[in-house]
């Protein structure tokens, strides 16, 4: 196997002790960046990019990609502990991770999140090692119509029948779409819903909405309940990691599905955030415990985390082989490659063997190192919940404010975050669902522009969405997902004989 020989060579590159040091520095910085909402992997890498100038390209990319791995791991921490997604892709982790923390199972939730992140990344790296050229060709098949189909699939697999009133789901979702449309329309270059205001030019960022709706909203709710984070004090147990690991093999199917969804979304490139939502939605739909999702199911943590990390990792593949960034962080890394004088593209794997295989080897090692680093911190992070509310609450609010500001360096965003916080509180009490709102906010823009690009290509002909087997399959799959509740009902009805074994798992 040529790949294996190359990989061994890559590990040889890593043997340089300085590279190992850079790896640890990168992971630690990354976790820190991941914990701080707002300061995302992309910002983190961009900020540190100039510092890597005096290093060799291989060392530089090892450190920067380790920052990225660290950020992928770190995003889960605040999601679980405080319901504040440290990174966009950990929004779905809050759905079950935070309820687990509220039940005193923060340690378990964090262990599950980190371990499944690692698994997702591992699958993606193996994929990159052995199938890189093949996958690169596959990614080229994706035009605007295919992108739209993937976004539609994400949407359809997440939006299902919840407990909430369908009108409230619809209203919340539409609010998300409307907010996503504010600002510059990328297709025509027109300004929409800015009303001459400079502050509205930048639109409503997903992260700011999420920090407000989830983070600040949660603090207000906690305060109202007089809970004051009391009774949440987790049993801090050094064995929590091992105990959680014993439970994890049960969720192998969810993990495998998450990894597949993640790799698919990273390569196409749909991105880590949609991947995490899609994986969560699918797990909810197809798991035996689906109905209990949202109440602190470990499976609900495993699903988004495997997918997010698999997507985040495999997003580097189209960047290296084609020069298309699969994620904002990959875009910054791409800039880095150009600055160091490397040309990402089909020839990178041929001409810069040492660099490419050093990077791939560092993905293996970086994720192992990352897992060790974050797992050792689990008891530490879990014990944060023991800090009294009146100390931790103002600190959380300050960190949220910093996070909201750093997204666009705009003061107004802090105020916007606060408004979202109040809205989050009211919506939660009136059971308007928040998940469709944030999903619409994150996907709305992308889906609309790919739809319109596709329409420009086809001169307004909708049949472009069934114009080739690839796009046709994805669109059909998406529609199947959307009408799944109806379909599954029909299937059960059509098989009256098997009524003794009702298809519980399909609900």
């Amino acid at each position, binding site marked *: 196997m040529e790949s294996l020989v190359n990989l061994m060579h890559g590990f040889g590159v890593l043997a340089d002790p300085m590279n190992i040091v850079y790896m640890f520095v990168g992971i630690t910085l990354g976790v820190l960046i991941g914990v701080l909402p707002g300061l995302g992997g992309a910002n983190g890498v961009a900020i540190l990019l100039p510092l890597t100038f005096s290093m060799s390209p291989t060392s530089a990319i090892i450190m920067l990609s380790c920052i990225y791995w660290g950020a992928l791991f770190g995003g889960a921490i605040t999601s679980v502990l405080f319901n504040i997604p440290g990174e966009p892709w950990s929004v779905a982790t809050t759905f079950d991770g935070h309820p687990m923390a509220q039940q005193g199972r923060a340690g378990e939730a964090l262990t599950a999140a980190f371990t499944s992140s690692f698994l997702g990344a591992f699958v993606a790296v193996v994929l990159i090692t052995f199938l890189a050229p093949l996958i690169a060709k596959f990614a*080229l098949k994706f035009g605007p119509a295919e992108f739209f189909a993937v976004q539609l699939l994400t949407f359809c697999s997440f939006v299902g029948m919840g407990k909430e009133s369908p009108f409230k789901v619809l209203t919340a979702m539409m609010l998300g779409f409307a907010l996503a449309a504010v600002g510059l329309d990328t297709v025509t270059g027109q*300004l929409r819903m800015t009303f001459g205001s*400079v502050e509205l030019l930048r639109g409503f960022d997903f992260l700011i909405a999420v920090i407000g709706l989830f983070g600040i909203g949660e603090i207000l709710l906690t305060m109202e309940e007089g809970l004051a984070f009391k009774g949440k004090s987790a049993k801090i147990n050094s064995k929590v990691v091992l105990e959680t690991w014993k439970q994890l093999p049960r969720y192998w199917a969810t993990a495998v599905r998450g990894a597949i969804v993640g790799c698919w979304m990273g390569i196409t490139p749909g991105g880590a955030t949609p991947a995490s939502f899609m994986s969560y939605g699918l797990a909810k739909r197809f798991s035996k415990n689906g109905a209990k999702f949202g109440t602190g199911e470990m499976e609900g943590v495993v699903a988004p985390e495997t997918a997010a990390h698999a997507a985040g990792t495999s997003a580097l593949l189209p960047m290296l082989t084609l020069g*298309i960034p699969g994620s904002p962080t990959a875009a*910054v890394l791409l800039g880095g490659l150009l600055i160091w004088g490397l040309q990402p593209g089909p020839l990178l794997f041929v001409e810069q063997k040492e660099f490419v295989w050093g990077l791939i080897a560092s993905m293996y090692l970086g994720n192992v190192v990352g897992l060790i680093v974050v797992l050792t911190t689990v008891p530490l992070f879990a014990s944060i919940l023991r800090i009294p509310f009146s100390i931790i609450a103002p600190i959380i609010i300050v960190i949220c404010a910093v996070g909201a500001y750093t997204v666009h360096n705009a003061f107004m965003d802090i105020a916007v975050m606060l408004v979202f916080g109040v809205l989050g509180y009211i919506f939660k009490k009136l059971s308007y669902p928040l998940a469709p709102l944030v999903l619409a906010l994150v996907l709305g823009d992308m889906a609309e522009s790919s739809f319109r*690009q596709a329409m420009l290509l086809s001169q307004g002909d909708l049949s472009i969405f069934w114009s080739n087997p690839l796009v046709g399959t994805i669109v059909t799959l998406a529609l199947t997902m959307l009408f799944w509740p109806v379909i599954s009902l029909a299937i059960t009805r059509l098989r009256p004989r098997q009524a003794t074994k009702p298809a519980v798992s399909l609900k």
Partner: protein
Amino acid sequence: MTALESLKSSAKAAAITCLSFTAIATTTLTSSAALAWEPTKSVEFIVPAGTGGGADQMARMIQGIIQKNNLMKQPVVVINKSGGAGAEGFLDVSGSNRNPHKIIITLSNLFTTPMATGVPFSWKDMTPVAMLALDNFILWVNSESAYKSPKEFVDAAKTGGANSFKMGGTGSKQEDQIVTAAIEQTTGTTFTYIPYKGGGDVAAQLVGNHITASVNNPIEAVAQWRAGALRPLCVFDSQRIQLKEPIAEGKSWNDVPTCKESGLDVEYTMLRGIFMSPGVTADQTKFYVELFQKVRETDDWKDFMAKGAFNTTFKAGDEYKTWLAQAETTHRSLMEKAGFLAK
């Protein structure tokens, strides 16, 4: 002392401190004016575009060069303000009067954004510092396609009928669409223009045959050229690129003809220039002009320019202003003819 009295006296004390501060500030200013001006705190380097794009890359490159070679005592801090096609960044600079610690790097949106969106700003609201380079545009097609020259390409587009050819580009009513519009205006053909998010996406879409052609910057498509997936037809500059090192198939950048010499009379380059806040002193501007001259002399910068096949013209002062005024007129007339001006 009553509370009121103490309040008064502390207010007085504050006023005095304030005064003395101003005094100190004035003295430092006058004394340092004899020497050259230098930044006294970190310099904000605004990028009116998102992270990862061409302008962002260049800004972070400059930040790294300044840091590595110790060209400035204070650090440079890169800030992205991409809202409203960069309007947010430009408004930030034009709105911060006499702030010598804020500079901005431009792309074509310096001219196009106010014209296309109606957001009120202009290069005249800022202090021009220097032109660092001009970014080139090249007409690319997929190497599987039959077009070997711009003429063949344009003829095929004409015979194919209106909108039959699909031109991909970055953003809407910005540089790529303006070049496309200019081609349409000189040749009388029409293209379907598809706006994408970034140059890398456009190049990959062209490789995947989802579009017919693109006007990517050299750096965005060179890797695909070397891999034999894309073919450059011509460069939209007034002269050929002066780089003779072979890139692909034994051809160098210098072997790519200009569009004008191959019968497609369109010229366009994009400004990579630096501006400052309005109302800054000549001394302050001078500092930055000299700083960027030092940056240009470093090997890292020269290497970057060669990799990206930039046009390395440098301009400052009045020469730069004249260029800007002319570029604005060109943009206005191109955009007016294409119907891109905000209503």
